[in-house]
């Protein structure tokens, strides 16, 4: 620690007159708590010096190539054109670096060097950003990781509570089973990408609720990588081996779960899953036959909340260090065509996109219609 502060002092001396900036830790509550809700009571609050707008904002995405990421990029572009923020943004740029940590760090550093005011990113790794955090603080740049966040409390981050999501899925499944009068049997858990913190937290949430229940459940876990194809295969295998499940709780690739159930002729059971349009279509169609479903999504619209948070921080508002975005939940009772799913849109489209408390009102069809060429 001592060495580190020496290095910091050295850095300051090297800069001559430039002071070590970055956010100061202040007491809450923060601005607009209905949108920027602190993670929990112990979350600290940040405040940056207010800067003159309009701001230059960059989005440094990592992996690109699945529907979620593409939808995220389109949402970001659409939100940048939203009247509420359009005037506050002087320049807006999006790059994707692929799953390449040096390239992502390099891109962030390049934008810092170019004098951007805020950089919103989905980190390719939960670690390793020490250098860019240091540079961002030095240059008073607001760095906002969201979705795949960092294992640090030194930057402002935006995410949904994955643990709560896991719990809610399991609670719903147990409630539906209870209503059916089922109190024992096999429950299938479909996990996501191994080694990822989101997968870990969701699974912990699911399993602690199931373990606390008084029913006798045998939990079978398979790994579906959040991918429709992989999920379909592993669920089909699990059905072949285990015969019948009383409920299925899947973290992602929910279209694959439905497809596997259909193919195997498995009776409809309560299914908890993500927010894919196809999954919601299936629930709406078959809920009377027993497909009691709950759909909770990690929304691509998180990017818009992260952008809004960045702008708010640049305006000098008090912000929570870790912002918890409310979980967008829809059960089979709440689904409505054209409102929270779209029967005329593709299956792999992610339905949840809007966060009304944050003024993020970019809806599904609006994004699909978003022209590719308008941010020139």
């Amino acid at each position: 620690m001592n060495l580190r502060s020496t290095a910091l002092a050295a850095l300051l001396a090297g800069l001559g007159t430039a002071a070590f900036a970055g956010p100061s830790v202040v007491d809450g509550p923060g601005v607009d708590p209905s949108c920027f809700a602190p993670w929990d009571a112990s979350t600290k609050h940040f405040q940056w010096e207010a800067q003159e707008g309009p701001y230059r904002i960059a989005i440094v995405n990592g992996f690109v190539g699945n529907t979620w990421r593409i939808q995220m990029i389109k949402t970001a572009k659409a939100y940048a054109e939203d009247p509420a923020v359009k005037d506050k943004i002087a320049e807006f740029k999006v790059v994707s670096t692929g799953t390449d940590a040096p390239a992502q760090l390099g891109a962030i550093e390049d934008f810092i060097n170019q004098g951007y005011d805020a950089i919103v990113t989905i980190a390719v790794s939960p670690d390793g950003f020490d250098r860019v955090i240091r540079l961002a603080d030095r240059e008073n740049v607001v760095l906002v990781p969201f979705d795949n966040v960092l294992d640090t409390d030194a930057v402002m981050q935006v995410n949904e509570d994955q643990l709560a999501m896991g719990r809610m899925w399991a609670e719903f499944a147990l409630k539906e089973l209870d209503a059916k009068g089922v109190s024992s049997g096999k429950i299938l858990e479909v996990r996501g990408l191994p080694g990822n913190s989101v997968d870990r937290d969701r699974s912990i949430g699911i399993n602690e609720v199931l373990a606390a229940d008084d029913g006798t459940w045998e939990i079978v876990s398979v790994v579906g990588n959040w991918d429709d194809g992989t999920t379909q295969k592993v669920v089909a295998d699990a059905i072949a081996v285990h015969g019948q499940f009383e409920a299925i709780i899947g973290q992602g690739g929910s279209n694959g779960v439905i497809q596997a159930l259909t193919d195997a002729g498995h009776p409809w059971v309560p299914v908890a899953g993500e927010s894919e349009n196809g999954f919601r279509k299936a629930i709406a169609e078959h809920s009377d036959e027993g497909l009691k479903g709950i759909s909770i999504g990690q929304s691509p619209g998180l990017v818009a909340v992260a952008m809004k948070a960045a702008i708010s921080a640049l305006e000098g508002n008090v912000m929570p260090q870790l912002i918890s975005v409310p979980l967008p939940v829809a059960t089979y009772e709440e689904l409505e065509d054209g409102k929270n799913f779209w029967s005329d849109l593709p299956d792999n489209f992610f339905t949840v996109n809007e966060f009304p408390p944050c003024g993020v009102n970019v809806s599904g069809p609006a994004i699909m219609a978003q022209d590719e060429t308008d941010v020139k």
Partner: protein
Amino acid sequence: MRDLILRNRAFAGALAMFLVLFLGYHALHPRGFSTAVFIQNANESVAIAFVAMAQTIPVLMGGLDLSVGAVMTLANCIASHLVTGSPVQMVLGMIVTLACGTAFGLMNGLIVVYGRIQPIIATLATGAIAIGLALIIRPSPGGEIDGDLNWAVTNAVFDFAETYGLADDGNAAWLQPFVNIPVPLIILLVIGFGVWIPFKRTVTGRTVYAIGSAESAAFMSGLPVRRAKIAAFTLAGFFASCGGLYLAIQTSSGNADVSQAGAYTLNSIAAVVLGGSSLLGGIGGAIGSLVGAGILRVISFYFRILSIDPLLQPLIEGLVLLVAVSLGALRTLRVKNRLELFR
């Protein structure tokens, strides 16, 4: 001078292409050429440059090493555990990391030579082994690499000297001409030239080229073919682990990222070709690949200063890459004897 350029036409072409792209990027950069931007460019390029140099040596023999990205990842994970503690411990950790990577390369070489398996298949398998080991060593990303080391090595010479209190905290007069040079660039050039040029001049090094040109002829001429093959893969392991070690220091952590390992392996092949080496073997060199890696990186730098639709970027990057590689292949239009096309 003219002779030198003509003899290394492919390398000269790669260097020219790199300079044009690099200077163009700096000319368009909103803040112009500055130490900060130069440091950032160097940092981003080190890992891929090392992996590209690693790939070059098997390619010169007419083979491919599909494990370079995986060995880099393995070294990255090992380093994230070992490069910590007192300065002596950190240096020991670095040596062990490089030794592990080099040993892995040696194993590749032994499998190829004594197992008589094609390099591409052998390294496909050992690459999976390396990733497996990396995942065991570091199931979830993390590690505590010294923050000072990270700061010192990813900055300019001045910051390095200042962090460690060397040369009057970087203010010594004799250091002034060098203070703005990025440390990563120095590491890259010192290891690149310091290891590759002496190796190339040994009999073993020349044999690597000879194997790529005509393996049976090399064998009939009494060249140490087996030794050269083993040396080539060992050296590839060494360079790949240099990349992994730098990546660990740069990110202060280790991450057994499978898709990143794959991306680095593929990009290393692209960098080798851009650097003027022939995939058929016998032509090229590791320094060319260093430049090739630079070209690969600079192309992606442009997306940060130009407004190009994010979803079109991969397409444009691919097209630029294709054009760049095609420029390298222009020489085939001028061959006098068609037999040369098989070279």
